């Protein structure tokens, strides 16, 4: 659930979502849920001419399972905090496994 919480901190930031079919969609992150389904507002497609079907679409709901990458704004990520949190989560998981 860590990355779910992490994505929630990025709400209202501009992100680029790259899908497994190579489409890159840039927009404002509006919502994310437990499956990491993503909702973006005011979208535009990075290679518009290659992917014309989204030209009249203003917001999208993307199924989490088709996302390859989410390009994040560097300024919005507290890297030391995230590192710390991931280690703590990993330690918790290891503790539960015993």
């Amino acid at each position, binding site marked *: 659930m860590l990355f779910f919480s992490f994505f929630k901190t990025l709400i209202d930031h501009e992100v680029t979502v790259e899908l497994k079919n190579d489409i890159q969609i840039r927009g404002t992150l509006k919502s994310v849920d437990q499956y990491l389904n993503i909702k973006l507002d005011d979208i535009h497609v990075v290679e518009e001419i290659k992917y014309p079907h989204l030209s009249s*679409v*203003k917001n*999208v709901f*993307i*199924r989490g399972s*088709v996302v390859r990458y989410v390009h994040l704004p560097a300024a919005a990520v507290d890297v030391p905090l995230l590192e710390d949190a991931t280690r703590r989560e990993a330690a918790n998981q290891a503790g539960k496994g015993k």
Partner: protein
Amino acid sequence: MEHLSIHDPPPPQPGGGPHPGGPQGPPPPPQAQQLPPQMFTTAAQLLDLTDKKLLLVLRDGRKLIGILRSWDQFANLVLQSTVERVFATVSNPKDPHPKGLYADQLHGIFLVRGENVLLLGEIDLDKDDDPPFGYEKAEFAVVKKLADEQKAAEKSKETRRIKKLATLGFEGENMGEILL
């Protein structure tokens, strides 16, 4: 969709059943809500899109345009007045910019199983009447034929690429199936 809301009384407990405020003691404490957790997020997103004109991209690359009328917790969707839109490009050796074509085919009511949905987007009705930038409308049969040819070419290219990568020990994330 079940009409659950935060104000609904919780379902009756198996066994005992609710005590009708008898003299047995204080009323039972309020129970935790029985809504599944995804109701608050996935379903809430779909609720916003209900009765709107949507573009749906399926896992096999098909693009459907229709009005979302109903859905459930698995994101199975019911679309009304569904139109399938196909795109193709025509390359001309004289022109460096390939010309784009698109066409629509009316299907009617569609029930789409949730697992096949790649993304869904709300269509901006102000922009809906303009053709996509760089594309013009053409005969469905023509565009469909072109699109099928392009898809087949792309697929054989991808298959060769994956085969070559496999000999080098790589495994692709969508082996065999390409999504467009």
